[in-house]
């Protein structure tokens, strides 16, 4: 993968991450709680 493609791939990964975080936050707003992934076992 050349440098240009690497830049595009890195930005794509960042955008997907941001979108997933926003989607997760929106889901949590509907159903508050630790989300079951804090390691607390709840």
């Amino acid at each position: 993968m050349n440098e240009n493609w690497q830049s595009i791939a890195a930005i794509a990964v960042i955008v997907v991450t941001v979108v997933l975080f926003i989607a997760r936050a929106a889901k949590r707003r509907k159903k508050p709680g630790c989300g079951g992934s804090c390691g607390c076992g709840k």
Partner: protein
Amino acid sequence: MSAAAPETPLIAIVGNPNSGKTTLFNLLTGLKQKVANYPGVTVEKKIGECYSQHGKKLRLIDLPGAYSLNARSPDEAVLRDVLLGRRPETPRPDRVVCVLDSANFERNLYMAGQVLELGLPTILVLNMVDVAEQREWRIDAIKLSEILGIPVVKTNAISGQGLIELKLALSREDISPPKWQNAALPEGVKAALEHSRDEMRQAGVIHTRSSLLEPLYLLSDHDPTHYGIADTQIARIHELRSRMETDFPGWEDALVAERYRRIEELCAQVLKRPDQEIETITTKLDRILLHPVLGFVNLLLVLGLLFFLIFKVAEGPMGWIEAGFGQFGAWVEGLMSPGDFRDLIVNGVVPGVSGVVIFLPQILILFFFIGIMEDTGYMSRLAFIMDWAMSKVGLNGKSFLPFLSSYACAIPGVMAARTIDSPKDRLITILIAPLASCSARLPVYSLLIGVLFPVGEVGAFVQAGIMLGLYSLGTLGAFFFAWVFNKFVMKGSASPMILEMPSYKMPALKSILLQVWQRARMFLVRAGTIILGISILIWAASTYPKTAGDDSAKQMEHSFAGRAGKLIEPAIAPLGYDWKIGIGLIGSFAAREVFNSTMSVVYAVESGDDDNLAPLRDKLAAERRPDGRLVYTPLVCISLLVFYVFAMQCVSTIAIVKRETGSWKWAMFQLGYMTGTAYLLSLLIFQIGSALGY
């Protein structure tokens, strides 16, 4: 776990806390189980599969432990609702396995009697028969089975004794409803309950076919939050309850007395015990472990051993994980040509995720130890010992159990505060719970202790001592603030604590290892999702916008993260922190352990490709300010450690506190007092230490 066919029978396992119910569930299901939450509550829902002795597939559900079906907490409300068929997502069980602690046979029969009253086909399991035999208690299981008309099985969940008999009983499809009569109610009370049932049916609180027991348990519900009942229906239930209390004063007490009378009658027929109580290992051990002085000394020794093991035993596996991530990073580096994507993996993902995952062995040891303490029965003694200390600050041992849970994670701790009857005690417990050093603080503590005392320079004993000191500091802080809140914010007297002391027993290793595995899986899932995501974002914030040239230090300063760190630097400089630590503080506001990931990414990005695979603690120890002085001096490390002992730094806990207290007021108050204390103490430590020449 494969999806079970609808015709697979659902068997609920119920029992008092510490009756060995979960150990039995783990023994029957092994790894064929999954953990989820009941919708709307953070109460664990454990469902598993097993095969009967005749090869028939069975679904098992491990319901929360309780002393009665009159709910006092969300856990108990879940138990009541599942058994009554009130939870839409969980079908009413086809059969019930009711587990009794044989050594507490009489007391355990109270809830067992309530379960039998429901009329569901039930198997009675007399667990911990070995402990009962030590006390020379003889329970006639055959006679008990004849009287109740249901199978009765004696087991020892630790050794597996009686498991085959239990599986044979589980195979039976001809179990009749128990011959246990419902507690007799006076005619007037019965008529009033029938009337209440009609009103509840009309209001949609209960379904049309419900028996009299459903309104009975809803009316005698002592859960202050009335979990599982819609807000619109609570007012009606309150009204009906008040009317019952006015018309029939003491009706609930009379019902309890009637149940105990019948239990006594039953015990007279099936239980033989010596005239004088036999001295058991439990009574002998309790003489030391519950002693006001020796008990406390033992507590300190146990915790000291825990932290010693955390440092000594975890050292090797942590090194392997560190080396593994280092090799993976080097492999990716050799595989790809230079560019942003390679940089993202090598300097973002690998150090970010490894910065947290490396501490997995320590977390596992912590949870293994907690499991041993719970399983042996020592945890209840811990609450008893701490009751004395809690009473000094206006709370009781009941507040200590949620506080104790907070050492694993503040969220279940805050939730567990629901079991506290007094609203004042409950609120204070919620406010102080996050001061218990949770498992998310462990990676931060370990990293900074490693910088403060590098491996080889001091022994694991010293590191364990510092760790114990940090945990003690958080605990003392919690006690101090409980006293302050009690004295100046919410005045009132303390309520007494009633706690059952289970008999000591050998820990069930298989069951504990299963729980440790579940924790490990959750920790790794979190590292692979949230921590991975945050590492990517921290890398992006440290990489963009880009500067011309290859000076990575300049790039870091120019980046979004660098600018944010510089922005807060004037506020944190008096604490001894530089702008890079500022980035760590901002990054870890969502969750404490993200401090490690953030610092790993920041130093990996800044150092470029040459030495980015060196351990983070070495990089921190070598970090210097522009004037050549070390950044992480012992004073800065201590200041930072104290900051993390007291600072809130957990968005999930803030959200839970808001939900549990019903307003943002207390959540914001908690965030304010904890962050303020963290800042003030760190400031004092650094400024006084600097003035003294450290």
